[in-house]
């Protein structure tokens, strides 16, 4: 079985490096993009199994990117993990997009991200990560398929 493809998108290079190292070491194929538009182009070309994206980015924000994914029949089911420095300022209606499975405030624990990624892609049951993280207080996107 080919490795799962993950697209990571953030305008901060150190975030890209940390995530791509963590995920590559775990055996995933990682693509990186520095803004929402680049991410969309890469997504359309490579059809990633999962997108991890920052919320605030130039050109195309994380939410706009998610909306574009939603509008593309080939990408509409791509699960998304949203990273944000302002987790609590995201409105309830912003998180209605069903692609957004989790919201993680920065700075996040790379271990935690890996655990969530595995949970979403491999169906590994999420255990401790739901418990106690600030994301738990954002009700909508915690539901997993």
């Amino acid at each position, binding site marked *: 079985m080919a490795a799962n493809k993950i697209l990571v998108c953030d305008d901060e290079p*150190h975030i890209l490096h940390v995530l791509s190292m963590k995920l590559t070491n775990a055996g995933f194929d990682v693509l990186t993009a520095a803004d929402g538009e680049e991410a969309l182009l890469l997504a359309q070309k490579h059809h990633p199994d999962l997108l991890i994206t920052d919320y605030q980015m130039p050109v195309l924000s994380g939410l706009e990117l998610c909306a574009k994914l939603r509008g593309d029949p080939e990408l509409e089911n791509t699960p998304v993990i949203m990273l944000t420095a302002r987790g609590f300022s995201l409105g309830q209606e912003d998180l209605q997009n069903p692609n957004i499975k989790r919201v993680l405030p920065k700075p996040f624990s790379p271990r935690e991200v890996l655990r969530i990624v595995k949970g979403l892609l491999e169906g590994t049951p999420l255990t401790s990560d739901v418990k106690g993280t600030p994301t738990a207080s954002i009700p909508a996107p915690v539901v997993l398929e």
Partner: protein
Amino acid sequence: VTPVAATTSIKVTKDRDGRLPAIVVDRPISAASFARLTEQWRDARVWLSLWNADGRLVESDAKTGRLWTALLAAEVGFTPRLAEHVRTLVKTCSGAGESPSGGQPEWGPWHPNLSFLAAPVRWRQRTVGAVIGGVVTSAAGGEEFTRLCTQCGLDREAALQWAVETGAVRPDELPGLVRLLQLSVQLSRELEVGREEISVLTSNLEDTYEELNLIYQISRQMNLDRKPGDVLQSIGRDVLEVSRAAGIAFVLREQMPASDAVLPVEGAFYDDLHARVVQVGHAAPGLRELEDLAERLDIKTAPPPSYILLNNAGEGSELNWAQGWLKHLVALPLWHEQELLGVLLAINCRDEGDYTSVDVQLLRAVADRVAAFLQNQRLYTDLAELLMGMLHALVNSIDAKDSYTCGHSERVAFYGRALARAAGATAAECDRVYLAGLLHDVGKIGVPDAVLCKPGKLTNEEFDAMRRHPEIGAKILARVRQIADLIPGVLNHHERPDGRGYPHRLAGRAIPLYGRIICLADGFDAMTSSRTYRTALPLPAAIAEIRRCSGTQFDPELAEHFLKLDLQELAKEARTCQGIATA
């Protein structure tokens, strides 16, 4: 036993002069980079080989350059000469300067038909190897070429064929090519160094992220409402995940409170060891060993920033006894404001490496927070115990006025809590009922002793004085914000469902719940205790009495819950538990 002193001992293998080992570069350029280079230079008809600083051939382009491969493999040939050339290059290129110097040729016609281009591989100020490019400088053939083939034992026809395959370079192109090769090797090396550095930085950043999250997580777990043992357990688990430790242990000097509740708890008492030692992961064979270990570490006398770091712990004569299980150890004192509260132990490295000061730094951040938490926990417990102690002292002093009511308030509190629990109240509500029960007669302090302790029948006036105690109690408690919610219990514990109680003749559900609960608990204790004017009712008679008065004196629903309890056992417990409750 000689204590292990609080010093640092990091095991680093140094050479005889005490220097750290020299950096050995086996491979001046990574295989991937060299592969990229060879591919680029193949098109320019340059065949590349990679050499390390000792003049050892690391790798050469195997795809083309069969001529070169054959020449290198030949016993009499170019290998020794090239090796010597590289060694000289390394010697002359080390130190300042960008390119080979000292009159050493960077390229040269070593043979009428063949030339070599030399590009040093630099690492910081040192030259750690070289890339040598071989070129055929003119159409091979002729006498010199034939002699070379004979010398090296090559088949002339085959060698000629290979030389043609390789393609020739004009001699006037050599100076330009060598500059380009040097630049391309240097860039390729710089790119590689950059990548390595990013990867190291990224890995450090990742660790920092994890540590930051750990500290954040730990801070959130330090909830004074939780049992300290549970808090230490979950902190230990988090530290275990982020650090390299195989086991984490906290050895405290004082017992942790067995429960967050300050009220007397039935059962579940920690033994001393479990109340002082918390172990997570694979730390030690048992708690006793951890305590022994903590005892032997001379961490108590060491000033706050000290720690113990041992990477061959079991071998130390002081810790010989732990040889079977102890290899690596970091011990940090849990200090809070000049006071040693215990020790944090990180035992054995999961990755078989050694602990370093980086591990210590992370553990110290944890230790500092744990110490602050333990201290807060202790202050909190102290305050709560002080409050309970004062309350008990107060009600005992009232109960003591009359030898017949001795322990009455404690028992009412105890029955009230049991009843509240049976009626489905939360643990927090049960604790409040307990306090309300404890204080229900506090107003008797305002009733004259002559009335309170009168052995005979009370007159109407005396009864009136007696009946004022719920209101007096409510007034006394109204001044204390933290227990204002108990007032309904105190004020209404003599109200009756049939409306014939006092002080306000409330009826049925108009009587607050705490009042109804304490009324029943109070009544039960009164019946089952002796008074000046009668002896205690036997239990079956008391039960019958509660049943008879259900709906008139006692809330019928609560009476039902109460009668379902094992009252025999409860009454026995109430009378034996008092020692603990008043302690």
